[in-house]
């Protein structure tokens, strides 16, 4: 049943791609056919005027999204059934290689990630129809967008369903390629092209690493189905090689430092509802892959892997958020924040690995649950924020924080939804981000039960880094909200922004915001539902998780720690309301509007406000070595001979150090190597004959 629904979900996504392809006068096939007919009679490119854009085009615009939404709905249903049912369903489809058909399976782990995928997908498909309206009359065909969105979603769902390495990789790459086309969708911008190129390149290299990781397992087991791979008898060296390859491959997709550089380039380039899916969901698919490979396929775990993952995860978390703080482009900032959150998830996974390999399976399970929960939470709030950024982009065509401000007055509903996202991602109680980070802290605090002193000191240090990260995340999102929504508008078009009128564009974020609050306040049912999942992966179910009842969260035992988000919410609301009642209702003193203090200069202008750049300046200065800052001051003089300075032009850029350390050198190395190799081909035929001659001589010498 669950697998059937999942299959329907994939089909719906594919149908949505198809619907986009064939539908509408803007549709690709339709258009292409008209072109063709036009060319056959040598009248190229006659625009089609028979079908006026009206009801038909609206149908064409919404149809793919309706199907995508259906796909999301089926995905959530299938995922819930699989997660709660706990059984694994498998099926084999007659595709693929002759001796290796496509094996599909849906187990609780995949089911959970189906839920992670489904909810943002529903939200994105609610958001989409309104958002893409502006593309309708643009240069780029809507059908291309719809086609690849559908394929992208189908690819992600198939990754979750895959039960053999071959199908897994097909689906994985399908996901990458389809999202590549989405990143390159508005390809007239050079930055988008560059981003798409970098993205696909890294996706390709990562995919090869994953293939090789599977290859190691296949080499020791003889088959490519997951069943066969699980039975691989590896020695620790080969297992470590497989693990390292998998970490590199999945980590590249998930955006772990230093393999993250594609992420802040690619995510902002895609249309916003796609960015939401990429950042919210696709990164989770990478995490799914990592969990599947490490916890499920690898026969045993080593604590060294856990340390590696913990270190990389912590580095990603703190570097991600530090870079996010320095971004002025809202979507770029959100993308860097995804690096941070993926880092947090990997930190939790690292803890789980360490505990699991040290024989503390119960604590390992706790870490895994924390990681899974944070994956879901991040999917929710990051999609919410990306959709919010998309809504701002749609209404104002502005991405830079430096030009925003005061949007809360112009778009109050969106502002409220965005605030929930901001609070969730800043890990504040009682929202969902806090629950998962709290669980991670709780896991880390159990480090005392580990024998090795090194690990015992490492884990708390990592958790302190995590604390730094979450504090910085709060700073970052205070900046975002404060600069974008509060204060005075910093540019004219922002001052004239309008509230969203398309109901779907609010409904999508609203759904996610509701989930953020719901899972923040009542995480217990969710964590209980993960029982079957952890049972299959680690062999344990958290026993004491609801020792105090469904209102309380007690990961280890009630004595060690307890947290009741519902009561926290209740208490906050009660106290707040009481104060309000006592202080306002009873006195009835209405507040008065007045000018704020402007130091007596007469009127505030937006220019006196703190900007996004100035807000994050102290952090930049404190963490100076992390950033590659480029500051230039250009003096403008009256003429070439004059020395009088009439104006100053100040330019400031914060670059990712990874570029200068890793990427630019490797790019240069390839170019240099290519130039060097190029000398081989001189163009002179005698040289070429010489090559053949010496090849022959050498080979003869070698074999005889």
């Amino acid at each position, binding site marked *: 049943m669950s697998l059937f629904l999942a299959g329907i979900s994939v089909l719906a996504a594919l149908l949505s791609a198809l619907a986009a392809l064939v539908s509408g006068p803007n549709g690709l096939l339709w258009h292409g056919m008209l072109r063709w007919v036009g060319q056959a009679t040598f009248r190229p490119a006659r625009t089609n005027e028979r079908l006026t854009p009206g009801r038909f085009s609206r149908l064409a615009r919404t149809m793919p999204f309706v199907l995508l939404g259906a796909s999301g709905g089926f995905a959530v249903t299938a995922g819930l059934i699989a997660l709660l049912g706990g059984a694994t369903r498998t099926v084999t489809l007659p595709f693929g290689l002759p001796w290796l058909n496509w094996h599909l399976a849906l187990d609780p782990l995949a089911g959970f990630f189906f839920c992670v995928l489904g909810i943002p997908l529903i939200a994105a498909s609610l958001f989409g129809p309104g958002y893409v309206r502006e593309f309708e009359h643009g240069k780029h065909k809507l059908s291309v967008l719809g086609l690849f969105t559908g394929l992208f979603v189908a690819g992600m769902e198939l990754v979750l369903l895959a039960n053999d390495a071959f199908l897994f*990789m097909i689906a994985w790459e399908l996901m990458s390629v389809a999202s590549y086309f989405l990143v390159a969708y508005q390809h007239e911008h050079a930055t988008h092209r560059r981003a798409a190129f970098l993205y696909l390149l890294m996706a390709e290299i990562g995919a090869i690493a994953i293939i090789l990781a599977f*290859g190691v397992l296949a080499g020791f087991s003889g088959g490519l189905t997951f069943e066969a791979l699980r039975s691989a008898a590896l020695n620790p060296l080969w297992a470590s090689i497989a693990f390292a390859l998998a970490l590199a491959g999945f980590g590249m997709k998930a955006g772990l430092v230093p393999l993250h550089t594609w992420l802040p380039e690619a995510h902002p380039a895609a249309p916003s509802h796609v960015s939401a899916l990429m950042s919210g969901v696709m990164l989770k698919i990478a995490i799914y892959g990592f969990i599947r490979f490490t916890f499920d396929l690898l026969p045993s775990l080593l604590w060294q892997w856990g340390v590696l993952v913990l270190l990389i995860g912590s580095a990603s978390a703190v570097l991600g958020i530090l870079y996010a703080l320095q971004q002025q482009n809202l979507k770029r900032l959100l993308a860097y924040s995804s690096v941070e959150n993926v880092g947090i998830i990997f930190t939790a996974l690292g803890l789980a690995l360490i505990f699991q390999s040290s024989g503390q399976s119960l604590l390992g399970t706790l870490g895994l649950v924390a990681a899974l929960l944070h994956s879901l939470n991040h999917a929710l709030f990051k999609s919410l924020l990306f959709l919010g950024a998309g809504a701002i982009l749609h209404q104002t065509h502005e991405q830079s924080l430096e030009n925003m401000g005061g949007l809360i007055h112009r778009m109050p509903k969106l502002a409220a939804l965005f605030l929930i996202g901001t609070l969730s991602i800043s890990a504040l109680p009682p929202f969902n981000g806090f629950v998962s980070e709290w669980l991670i802290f709780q896991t880390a605090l159990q480090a005392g039960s580990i024998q090795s002193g090194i690990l015992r000191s490492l884990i708390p240090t990592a958790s302190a880094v995590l604390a730094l990260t979450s504090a910085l995340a709060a700073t970052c999102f205070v900046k975002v909200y404060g600069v974008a929504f509060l204060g005075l508008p910093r540019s004219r078009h922002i001052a004239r922004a309008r509230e969203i009128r398309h109901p779907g564009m609010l409904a999508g974020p609203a759904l996610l915001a509701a989930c953020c609050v719901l899972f923040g306040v009542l995480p217990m049912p969710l964590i209980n539902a993960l029982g079957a999942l952890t049972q299959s992966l680690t062999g344990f179910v958290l026993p004491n998780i609801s020792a105090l009842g469904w209102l309380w969260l007690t990961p280890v035992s009630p004595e060690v720690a307890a947290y009741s988000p519902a009561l926290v919410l209740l208490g906050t609301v009660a106290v707040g309301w009481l104060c309000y009642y006592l202080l306002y209702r009873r006195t009835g003193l209405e507040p008065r509007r007045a000018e704020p203090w402007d130091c007596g200069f007469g009127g505030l202008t937006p220019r006196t406000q703190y900007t996004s750049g100035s807000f994050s300046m102290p952090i930049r200065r404190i963490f100076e070595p992390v950033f590659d800052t480029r500051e230039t001051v250009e003096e403008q003089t009256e003429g070439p001979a004059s020395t009088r300075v009439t104006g100053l032009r100040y330019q400031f850029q914060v670059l990712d150090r990874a570029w200068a350390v890793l990427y630019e050198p490797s790019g240069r190395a390839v170019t240099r190597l290519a130039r060097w190799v*190029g000398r081989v081909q001189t163009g002179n035929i005698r040289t070429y*004959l010489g090559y*053949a001659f010496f090849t022959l001589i050498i080979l003869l010498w070698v074999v005889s």
Partner: protein
Amino acid sequence: MIAAYLVLVIPLAGMAILGLLADSRRAGRINVHCNAWALAASIWLAIDVLVHGPRLSSGQLLYIDSFNVYLIVLTAFVGLTTSIFSGPYMAHELETGRVNVKRLRLYYAMYQGFMLAMYLVLTTNNMGVLWVAMEGATLATVLLVSLYRTPESVEAAWKYFILCGVGIALALFGTVLLYFAAEQKLGIGGNALLWTVLHVNAGALEPNIMRLAFVFLLVGYGTKIGLVPLHNWLPDAHSEGPTPMSAILSGLLLNDALYAVVRCKMLVDGSLGTQVAGYLMMGFGLLSFLVAALFLHRQTDIKRLFSYSSIEHMGLMTFAFGIGSPWATFAALFHMTTHSLTKSAIFVTVGHAAQLAGTQRMDRIRGLILTQPAIGWGLLIGTVAIAGFPPFGVFASEFLVLIATMRDYPWLTPLLLIGIGVAFAGLFRHLQLMVYGDVPEGQKPIPANLLPVMIHLALVLWLGLSIPGFLGDWFSQATQLISGASPL
């Protein structure tokens, strides 16, 4: 076996007719017809083999087994689709004055001549005839490379001729040695060059001689495959000749040369009982793969770019055959199919793109998707397919090669990883600029027939999703034949 003879006779007749016919417009159509009939005959042959198993002709001159039967159909198919493309293409070239009627006649006649040579290479059972046909293929195409008579095209043709001529001469020396080795065991007579006979008696052949023979054969036919450092003719010839010819060179000739090498390898492996031949092939394959991947970065000419990509893929196939394990062999066989389908499709779109922009220089080709979406998307999707992204078929073979390498030679995988990454970057850094972006001034859509491209890519997609049963059986049988074990 009538079908096998038909496959040979039809292009022969076509060559004769087209060589004598003066009407260039009808020549294009006749060319298509010849290829269509050849395809029909090849399908008949395929069904014949499917039903009856490997077939040996009465004079033992022709031999069709599961290794070559699908290559024959593939050759006929690519030949047909390329000829469909070449009609309007060459008409356009005639209009723009790059060729005249006389050269067009030569073109069509040699097109059929080349097809004949290809069929002969694939069908023959005689290693000597195989050599003759291979040389014939060079001779048929060398004048086509210089068809435009530009200094560059003459230069390219000359290099093509000399390098391939010398290379193939070395292959003949290898063939002589092979014959010598066989004759010692089988006695003097006509049978000692028949592959079927040789294969049966491979174990008895003198290993020392076979080893020498293989070196000559590998260097000789390797020149035609385009193995580095013997590849130098390849990008020149591909870039300067007419595009349909680039398509069939890349899609067919390289495959057939590799086919010849693999046939020889089977004999040598049987004789030596060691992996020497495999190691040599792996070395050459890997070198070609890496060097070609680097060369991709330096290209300015669009057809040169894709010809280096061909070298890269041929290197990968050679490498995979060299590994010799069932999975790798299966992958290489499959890759031969998907690569030639994809690469010929790419060359067709490249031809249109070059006509659209009026140049082959990549820095002048811009904004294809917005100018003419069919060409832009065709090129983009084709390149995505050739770069090894699923669900296209090239992925499946690259996947298997990687897995097989990891199993048998894990320390080589970092090189493969780097190579694929570098090659990918090399392709896309040029491609993106061409297909994306705004339309340059004055660029207008042209009449283009992209049916071949669509069919090819659809087939590659189909193969990527699911290999039809009979084809899978052939691949498996051929794998069994080459590697001695079944991939199942």
